[in-house]
């Protein structure tokens, strides 16, 4: 607290670029086999990372079946930001939750469709889950089998959730656990998704390197003589290089700065930090074991991905992998995960703490050490949202599902977060599904837009096309109803009526009761999705283009 106090609210100019921060991010190989099938279309088109086809999610309530999603299809290409807009209750968030299979069952259930993440159907095996009904008199063996299948299908999801598909939740203050500090929660994600990397760093670190003394002194001099932060950063980086431990660069940077600001000699503090890096023989062997477990889990995940891709489950292989894993776990008796974290806790905690500080730096937080030590209630909404973004990005996901990330924030903070997300998109290149009800935000961040209405995607277009020439009457109405700060003259028009009840949705096109152009056919049939122009699809009987192929 003490040293960071002088400039608490300013964004320090010395925050390093994220590219330097996450060098592995960009170089991350697509470890699980091939990327999705290359699209036949234009040459410069990126491969599709997420392909949602005819997704149906229903909620079974006492009042009836709420058809929250009724055949939603869209695609996200690599590095692309797709905006998803629509009114409250049109199924935007349900889409995101369905993709990661976070829909709570009992009430909700994904009843159909496919979510292809890099060619693998994430929803595979769901039908087994849906069949499970623990009713009176049912066969015990069958129930156990259902349980096993559910467990297996959920285990398969681990291969995708968090690691491949990251998520930013809507309400930042309630999405974090109030009883753990920020660094604690960031560390958890880091250990879960990048545990092997963290352990490798610890195992390869050279805390006894003789050159470290010189590097420390150089760093202390740089801080003491008040050199520009870039130079100090460089000196700190050198410390990290000498010790073969990148997180030491961050740690030594902050330690040295704090110590000198408080008028203390940084060298003993740095030495102490190095001492924490040293592993006892026991800790080393624990870490090695842990690594093997993680490697096995990865293997398992890869095989799950492959199975989802092939559409088969090779039960024999899975069983053998599980057997090996179990064997590894029990060979020494003490090799449970908890035990390992207990034995090597100090160095692991240090490493993950400073890694989370580095992550926080990467999202332009001014005093990352202080933020990492604080608890969620001590932070403002914007700050927690940043932490959430850091958490979602910590596993280097291919896809980021951002569910109304700025809705709860003020405009100035929203501008900061949008700027950050745009910046991250350029540097990290994560594909993003940006869910919001605010078309203005979509115009700022998205490249393509899906307009949703009552559980259907009614229009998909490049953002420019949509704003220049909305085709669906609903999109037109939506655009006409936004007050614009740059066009105060604009007469606000509104869409008459309100969103229909999804238990008994209107037949045919769900928009027809509110539509100004409603025709008799709209009442009877659901309009097909047709292609109008390049990359512009619409589901409306007003347009007669060729029917889009799935």
């Amino acid at each position: 607290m003490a040293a960071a106090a002088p400039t608490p609210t300013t964004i320090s100019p010395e925050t390093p670029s994220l590219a330097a921060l996450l060098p592995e991010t960009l170089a991350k190989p697509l470890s699980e086999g091939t990327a999705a099938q290359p699209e036949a279309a234009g040459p410069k088109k990126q491969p599709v990372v997420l392909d949602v086809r005819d997704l149906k999610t229903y909620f079974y309530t006492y009042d009836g079946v709420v058809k929250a999603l009724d055949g939603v299809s869209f695609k996200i290409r690599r590095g692309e930001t797709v905006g998803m807009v629509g009114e409250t209750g049109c199924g935007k968030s349900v889409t995101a939750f369905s993709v990661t299979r976070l829909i709570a069952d009992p009430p909700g259930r994904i009843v159909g469709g496919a979510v292809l993440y890099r060619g693998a159907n994430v929803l595979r095996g769901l039908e087994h889950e849906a069949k499970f009904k623990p009713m009176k008199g049912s066969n015990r063996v069958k129930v156990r089998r259902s349980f096993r299948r559910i467990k297996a299908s959920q285990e398969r999801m681990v291969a995708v959730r968090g690691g491949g598909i990251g998520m930013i939740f809507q309400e930042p203050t309630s999405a974090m656990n109030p009883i753990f500090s920020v660094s604690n929660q960031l560390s958890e994600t880091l250990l879960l998704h990048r545990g092997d990397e963290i352990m490798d760093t610890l195992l390869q670190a050279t805390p006894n390197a003789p050159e470290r003394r010189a590097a420390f002194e150089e760093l202390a001099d740089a801080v003491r003589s008040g050199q520009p932060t870039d130079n100090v950063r460089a000196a700190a980086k050198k410390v990290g290089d000498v010790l073969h431990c990148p997180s030491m660069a961050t740690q030594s940077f902050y330690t040295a700065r704090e110590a000198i600001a408080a008028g203390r000699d940084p060298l003993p503090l740095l030495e102490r930090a190095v001492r924490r890096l040293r592993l006892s023989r026991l800790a080393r062997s624990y870490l090695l074991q842990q690594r093997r477990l993680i490697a096995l889990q990865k293997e398992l995940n890869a095989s799950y991905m492959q199975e989802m891709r092939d559409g088969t489950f090779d039960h024999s292989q899975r069983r053998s992998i599980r057997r090996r894993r179990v064997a590894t776990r029990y060979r020494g008796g003490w090799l449970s995960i908890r035990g390992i974290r207990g034995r090597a806790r100090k160095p692991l905690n240090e490493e993950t703490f400073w890694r989370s500080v580095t992550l926080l730096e990467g999202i332009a937080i001014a005093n990352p050490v202080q933020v990492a030590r604080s608890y969620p209630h001590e932070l403002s909404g914007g700050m927690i949202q940043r932490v959430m973004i850091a958490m979602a990005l910590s596993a280097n996901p291919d896809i980021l599902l951002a569910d109304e990330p700025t809705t709860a924030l003020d405009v100035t903070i929203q501008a900061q977060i949008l700027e950050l997300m745009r910046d991250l998109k350029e540097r990290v290149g994560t594909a993003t599904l940006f869910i919001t009800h605010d078309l203005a935000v979509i115009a700022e961040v998205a490249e393509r837009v899906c307009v949703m209405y009552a559980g259907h995607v009614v229009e998909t277009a490049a953002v420019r096309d949509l704003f220049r020439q909305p085709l669906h009457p609903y999109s037109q109405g939506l655009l006409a109803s936004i007050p614009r700060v740059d066009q105060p003259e604009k007469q606000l028009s509104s869409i008459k009526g309100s969103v229909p009840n999804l238990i008994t949705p209107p037949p045919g096109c769900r928009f027809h009761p509110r539509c100004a152009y409603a025709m008799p056919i709209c009442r009877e049939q659901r309009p097909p999705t047709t292609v109008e122009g390049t990359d512009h699809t619409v589901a409306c009987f007003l347009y007669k283009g060729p029917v889009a192929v799935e």
Partner: protein
Amino acid sequence: MKDGTSATILVARNLRKYFPIRGGLLSSHLGDVRAVDGVSFDIREGETVGLVGESGCGKTTVGRLLLRLIEPTSGHSFYRPPPETEARLNTLYDTLRPFTGGGDGGTEPPLTDEARRALEEIDAIADQYSLYRRSQRKMRPLRGKLQIVFQDPFSSLSPRQLIRDILTEPLAIHHVGSRSERYRRAEELVKDVGLNPDHLWRFPHEFSGGQRQRIGVARALALAPEFIVLDEPTSALDVSVQAQVLNLLRVLQAERGLAYLFISHHLSVVRAMSNRVLVMYLGKVVEEARTDELFTRPLHPYTQALLSAIPIPDPELKRERILLKGDVPSPAAPPSGCRFHTRCPAVMPVCSKVDPPYLQVRPDHFVACHLYPEGIPPKGATIPAGDGQIASAGMAGAEAPLVASH
């Protein structure tokens, strides 16, 4: 009605509201949250005043103070003072200005005799016109004239009352008409806000958000008010429904000559709705101007940043954006001097020491910022009423100079 001479309904001067922070062993007084700290403005007939700012800056508290839903710590709002009294009040407050500036305690010079006399005179006027000097009984007739529409249509309607009862209750409290007359009035009200009389026999949960907000508006209209505080009336609604409610509010204003205080954090909506805009930051008004002037020529760095942060629904428009650093400081311990100096892109050494005075910098344009030390000498400081037309700046908004030249 909007001919430049419309009468003033409310004159709010130096409104302050401090919420005490209690804690510790004997729940002793630990400090104050300065929710509203010296806010002054006028509300005129038939006019919409926008009030914008980030969350926690005291917008809602100002709205509630104006209706005396909460008692202020200090300050007055005068209800319909005669023009000569209003002019006198303005001169009196001008004399007092050097003594009530910062509100930081201890920084003001000791009162001179003249200032003391001014205070006494204000006191005398306040006894006659200030809302806060009235007894609750005397306040009651005014409650019908000053109304509010709450932010959240889901929690502001009693779930146990029929819409009919919700709408007739204010009439009953004010002894308007007989029961059958009141029901007839409720029917009219429901029609006025675009619902149909069948809806009177329903409960609030049977309505959608937009419809509930209409009911909230109808309830506010029941007693034929002169002035309605609209406390974020559309922020809980979807855009398509928001437009319905905004259009309704406009129509009602045109028909009945209502004055609105339109509180919102959504600047596009404020621009569409208001004639004059106040920008608040941490309990203080930092800028006030006519809507088109404020949006095309914002002077205060905070307003500039706020305006540049609004996302514009046009993917082809790329703008220079002023990004503010950090978050809004806590109103329990506001920064010294200018409260914005911790985040200000144009901060100067003086900003952290001296609270900038609130000056008229251009006609009808008030700013509290050290960048504009030379105000127009306040002559009587009465702001000639705006010509009342909604934002006539034309298409200038897109090319608006969002960065000040200083």
